């Protein structure tokens, strides 16, 4: 019989022991404390001083705990049957891949067996993903990235701002000439003007909307034609034959979408123009739809003073520097109101604030809808999981860990969310198209197609949906081991319930009869 170690050592050992999992404490707690005490006795014998022995024992306990506690928590659930992890299962990646494929297969089978609830979850997710993706697509196209061209984040509209009155005026031709010649902070500045022509020749005359663009605008935007070629500086040269591009929409309406339209001659107002190419509908450069025809002009200002100026900053140059330089170059131009200064702005400067706020509001609403859809889908899966306590209990009894269970649920929800996302993407496209049909005057919708960033958004929200839909049921299912052997028809309060020994008469948190040794 040995004398007990000092109280402080015993307390320290008990305190450290409490950091280990309960199963470990139950199995080895007494021996752990005994060993800690004996270690103290040895240290005392070695050093001859109880205080030094206590310090060394305490240090040993702390260092030991730092190494052992993570292992003890990792190993808190013993492997079934005392078997070794199979040593010949191949590389870990292949092993993981094989298990994942198995999980996907099991998940797919589980969904096929319950088609009604599967369809419900997929539809719920599709509604959420579709609405939020469509709303994000509109927000992105209108507010976040309004100019979908290479270097579009450096493009901006230039206007003359009168700070005293808050008015925005269009720059004059002289402004553009000076800026084009003198600005070092810009690597492109082009002009266009909304106009119209009277098309005559075949059948009745009609008015077609038109953009008169400066020669460098198509190149600055980097637009590729649907058919034919783009307009260029050669078309604006003096004496060059008049050339025109048709919008994709007008080409289909007036020429039936025939490739033979290229090269045809059309009478527009007082000149005959040759059709040289088809401008894509999606390559709009403000909030108006692409007009029926686009012609190049050496001086778009010639037909009026309200031309729009689109500039592209040089890489790395802030907008403030550009504005300062343009202001310096603008000094002394006749006819400019006093105090007017150049200002770079997004195209939504032409929209009302209420419109932009409305788009944000729609996006927020759609995002909230997505949240509701994900929670609903998680709830439906939770309900399904509640009916699978028997299956989950058997899995846990056979040695399945919470992590393994989570992977199974992840695979199942991945299948559901992928189907929901695919359907949602389709829905987003249909919402965009439907919006155009319902409100054709709202030309903003022409840009709300499912583009790259919207796809990334859809994938991100789908990933969130996958995790939420998997984690909630998996977490709740951990308690399935309390009553895994519930008999079919065993409902609390029923006769079957009173007779159902395994599921009802065993206390909660105890394992299933087969759990200890599968």
């Amino acid at each position: 019989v040995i004398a007990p170690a000092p109280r402080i050592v015993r307390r320290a050992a008990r305190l450290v022991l409490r950091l280990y999992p309960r199963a470990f404490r139950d199995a080895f707690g007494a021996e752990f404390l005994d060993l800690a005490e004996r270690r103290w006795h040895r240290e005392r014998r070695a050093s001859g001083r109880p205080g030094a022995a206590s310090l060394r024992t305490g240090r040993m306990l702390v260092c030991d705990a730092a190494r052992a506690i993570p292992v003890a928590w990792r190993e808190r659930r013993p492997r079934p049957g005392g078997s070794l992890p199979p040593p010949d299962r191949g590389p870990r990646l292949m092993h993981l891949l094989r298990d994942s494929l198995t999980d996907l297969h099991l998940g797919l089978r589980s969904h096929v067996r319950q088609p009604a609830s599967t369809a419900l979850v997929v539809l719920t997710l599709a509604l959420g993903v579709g609405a939020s993706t469509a709303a994000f697509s509109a927000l992105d196209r209108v507010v976040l990235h309004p100019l979908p061209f290479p270097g579009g984040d450096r493009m901006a509209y230039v206007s003359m701002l009168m700070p005293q009155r808050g008015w925005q005026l269009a720059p004059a031709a002289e402004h553009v000439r000076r800026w084009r010649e003198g600005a070092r902070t810009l690597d492109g500045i082009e002009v266009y003007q909304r106009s119209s022509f009277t098309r005559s020749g075949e059948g009745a005359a009609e008015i077609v909307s038109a953009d008169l663009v400066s020669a460098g605008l198509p190149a600055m935007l980097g637009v590729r034609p649907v058919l034919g070629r783009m307009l260029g500086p050669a078309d604006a040269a003096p004496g060059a034959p008049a050339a025109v591009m048709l919008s994709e929409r007008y080409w289909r309406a007036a020429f039936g979408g025939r490739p033979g339209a290229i090269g045809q001659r059309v009478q527009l107002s007082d000149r005959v123009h040759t059709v040289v190419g088809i401008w894509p509908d999606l390559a709009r450069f403000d909030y108006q739809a692409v007009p029926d025809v686009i012609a190049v002009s050496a001086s778009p200002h010639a037909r009026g003073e309200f031309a729009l100026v689109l500039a592209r900053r040089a890489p790395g140059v802030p907008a403030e520097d550009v504005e300062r330089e343009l202001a310096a170059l603008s000094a002394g131009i006749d006819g400019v109101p006093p105090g007017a200064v150049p200002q770079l702005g997004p195209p939504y400067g032409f929209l009302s604030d209420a419109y932009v706020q409305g788009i944000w509001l729609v996006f927020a609403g759609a995002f909230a809808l997505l949240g509701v859809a994900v929670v609903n889908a998680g709830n439906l899966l939770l309900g399904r999981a509640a009916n699978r306590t028997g299956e989950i209990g058997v899995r846990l009894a056979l040695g399945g860990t919470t992590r393994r269970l989570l992977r199974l649920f992840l695979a199942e929800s991945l299948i559901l969310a992928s189907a929901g996302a695919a359907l949602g993407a389709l829905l987003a496209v249909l919402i965009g198209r439907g919006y155009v049909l319902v409100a054709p005057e709202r030309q903003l919708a022409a840009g709300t197609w499912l583009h790259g960033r919207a796809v990334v958004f859809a994938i991100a929200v789908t990933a969130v949906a996958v995790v939420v839909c998997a984690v909630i049921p998996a977490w709740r299912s951990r308690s399935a081991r309390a009553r895994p052997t519930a008999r079919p028809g065993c409902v609390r309060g029923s006769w079957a319930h009173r007779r159902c020994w395994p599921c009802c008469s065993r206390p909660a948190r105890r394992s299933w009869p087969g759990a200890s040794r599968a």
Partner: protein
Amino acid sequence: MSMPRATFLVLLALADRPRHGLGIVDRIEDVTEGETKLGPGTLYTTLQQLLGHGLIRQTAEAPDPDDHDSRRKYYRITPLGTRRLRDEARQIRRLSRAAARHVLGDS
């Protein structure tokens, strides 16, 4: 696949006869000439792992009836554990020879 050092030492301590926790610690200190002193946490988590993997098992049989204490748990190495211990020892021997040849310059 190489096993952790503590695992190897515990198996080594149990190679000749069953021991209890303190006996394992003592044996390891003897074998390593006092260089390694396993703490209780490391010892019992290692024992827990080895029990789970079937490399050792608990036994009621005390090797020395005079030193028997009913509160103690004794552990015995299993045939699987012996095999794994031998494999590990062979691997260590190979590595040790290679290190001696390439690092220490032994011929």
